[in-house]
């Protein structure tokens, strides 16, 4: 419960950004935030209704005087035109920056090929960043926005990966068709797991999901389904070629596919959060009891959120299997669940752009922490030998300490600070 609460409240900044519909903007970083806020100020909502309604329903001047007690209002209790006090425009003008980010990411495809700037291995790495970003986003929806903690999302990653691998390898299904199958399977699995898990709060839910994460690799090794899963050996796949004779390498082509999927899943995530069910999801996190009295069937919404979260992670798993060309039980150990959770917290647990940062963290920092520790030891010629994960640990502690709301939350706070300074001077 405590983890949940701290992460959720720490990410408040990011949540607020999101709920305003500016969420995806921050994807482009600090510069983006600044620009949007400028446009927002100029487009501030002007409401002639205020004065009209106040006059029409005959409120006493006292109603307005009570504004004076608010810290946001000027001290003297003097009346300020509401338009001047309205902090931000509600207008959703934030498609610009995500658009630019997507366009940049898409343009990377052009720099590959023979003698190109980006090697096939680098395309694979970029794809993995996006794959992990999708997974982290799935966990964000559950833990960050709905307040349910999961230490077992590696299980759904595995389910998605094996669904794709088994369908492609054993049944010759087209790789693209395995994605919706993995999504549906994972939704059902996530929903069913979410139903009994509803009775568990905080630590107990963490334990139940932990059990799931540890059980799944063992289940995959189970003797009687070896014909399907390949047992300990796992399944080898071959990356699909680009269709229509496109001059793209398989890695390049899969990067395109993964990018399209990432855009689709982020778009869906944003739509959801900015909708009736999305508000209900956040309401349940903030005040479960009040959410019920607003008419929200919390059990159904929590189970559905669990299912949707599993869809994200499962799709990430399926894409991972296809681009990595290999699945085995030991690729989906408990470490993976933790990696996704750490990525979510580092990026910003209740933030869409944070998921992208989290994905990069999972791919790069996790994978290279070991090498970085060795290089660091050699570089400064430390007399003692550091454990391989030392740098990773230090980095993580420092990050949580400096940016409790994750990188996305930290950037949002930073932008807010800069803006305040500007408005003062």
């Amino acid at each position: 419960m405590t983890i949940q609460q701290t992460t959720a409240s720490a990410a408040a900044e990011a949540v607020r950004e999101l709920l305003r519909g500016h969420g995806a903007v921050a994807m482009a970083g600090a510069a983006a935030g600044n620009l949007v806020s400028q446009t927002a100020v100029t487009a501030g909502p002007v409401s002639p209704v205020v004065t009209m309604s106040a006059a029409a329903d005959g409120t006493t001047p006292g109603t307005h005087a009570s504004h004076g007690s608010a810290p946001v209002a000027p001290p003297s209790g003097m009346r300020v035109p509401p338009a001047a006090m309205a902090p931000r425009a509600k207008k959703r003008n934030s498609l610009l920056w995500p658009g630019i980010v997507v366009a940049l990411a898409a343009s990377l495809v052009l720099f590959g090929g023979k003698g190109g700037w980006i090697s096939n291995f680098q395309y694979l790495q970029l794809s993995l960043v996006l794959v992990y970003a999708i997974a982290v986003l799935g966990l964000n929806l559950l833990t960050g926005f709905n307040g349910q903690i999961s230490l077992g999302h590696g299980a759904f990653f595995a389910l998605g990966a094996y669904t794709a691998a088994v369908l492609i390898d054993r049944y010759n299904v087209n790789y693209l068709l395995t994605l919706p199958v993995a999504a549906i399977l994972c939704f059902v699995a996530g929903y069913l797991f979410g139903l009994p898990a509803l009775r568990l709060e905080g630590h107990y839910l963490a334990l139940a999901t932990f059990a799931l994460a540890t059980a799944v690799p063992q289940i995959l090794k189970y003797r009687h389904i070896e014909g399907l899963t390949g047992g300990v050996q796992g399944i080898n796949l071959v990356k699909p070629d680009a269709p229509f004779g496109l001059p793209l390498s398989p890695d390049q082509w899969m990067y395109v596919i993964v990018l399209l999927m990432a855009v689709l899943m982020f778009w869906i995530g944003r739509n959801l959060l900015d909708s009736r069910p999305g508000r209900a999801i956040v309401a349940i996190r903030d005040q479960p009891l009040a959410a019920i009295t607003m008419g929200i069937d919390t059990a159904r919404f929590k189970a559905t959120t669990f299912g949707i979260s599993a869809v994200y992670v499962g799709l990430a798993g399926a894409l991972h299997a296809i681009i990595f060309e290999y699945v085995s039980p030991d690729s989906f150990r408990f470490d993976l669940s933790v990696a996704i959770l750490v990525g979510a917290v580092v990026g910003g647990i209740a933030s869409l752009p944070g998921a992208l940062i989290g994905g990069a963290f999972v791919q790069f920092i996790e994978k290279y922490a070991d090498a970085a520790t060795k290089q660091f030891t050699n570089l400064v010629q430390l007399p003692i030998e550091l454990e391989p994960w030392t740098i990773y640990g230090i980095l993580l502690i420092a990050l949580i300490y400096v940016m409790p709301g994750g990188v996305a939350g930290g950037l949002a706070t930073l932008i807010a600070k800069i803006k305040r300074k500007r408005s003062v001077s």
Partner: protein
Amino acid sequence: MVASVEKVGGSLGTVPGAPLLSVRSVTVRFGGIVALNGVSFDISEGHIVGLIGPNGAGKTTLFNCLSRLYQPTEGDILYKGKSILQSPPYAIAGVGMGRTFQNVALFDNMSVLDNVKVGCHSVSQAGFLKSAFGVGVGAEEARIEARARELVAFMDLLPYTDMRAGPLPFPIRKRVELARALASGPSLLLLDEPAAGLNHAEVDVLKAQIRRVRDLQNVTVLLVEHHMSLVMSVSDRVVAIDFGKKLAEGTPAEVQRNADVVRAYLGTEAHA
């Protein structure tokens, strides 16, 4: 926008004279403790009814029975003539009852506007699948947006529209909660100690607001309150309970004169 707030008062299409809410000998036991003991009263449409009683009298227990957060051990609760005891708690908003909480239970990380939007949940339908792809939800979302903005303006909250609800001052938060409770257009509004934590001037504002809400939003109001002068001046009828039993019911003047009520509050024999 303003015009739609001011619905024409009067009939709401129910049987004239029939009570909106009937509490019928409701008893609630927690283990050996009897929190409510056979309490009965009716609320007529359009009234403001005050529910008073010393601390621990069972007022909030009764409220929680009405919102189905507690299950009465005995008795029945009828809303517009139908028992609500078979409905799950989340269905109560859809039945037409809105409520606020003693300690203000806002969704702190959401904006004021979004808080009010959540209040529209029970009168909207958009599901996960349609919302995920943004298909066929535009009209309803626009309606929710309009209703929420209308109520934000109605409760004089315009300057706070896009601010996070959590850090706002307590009196403002109370108004946000009231706006949220009104969003679904309830016919009965349950207010749990609306005056708690407010100063003198703010209570006066609240009094005007409760009346305004009743008159312009066409709701019947049941309020639990400690603040005697507020209850006595704003209520059409007052129900007094103590130790889980009803002491008196009637107009504010009648209840104020009731010997049992005086005894419960002052703890001495009343000599009239």
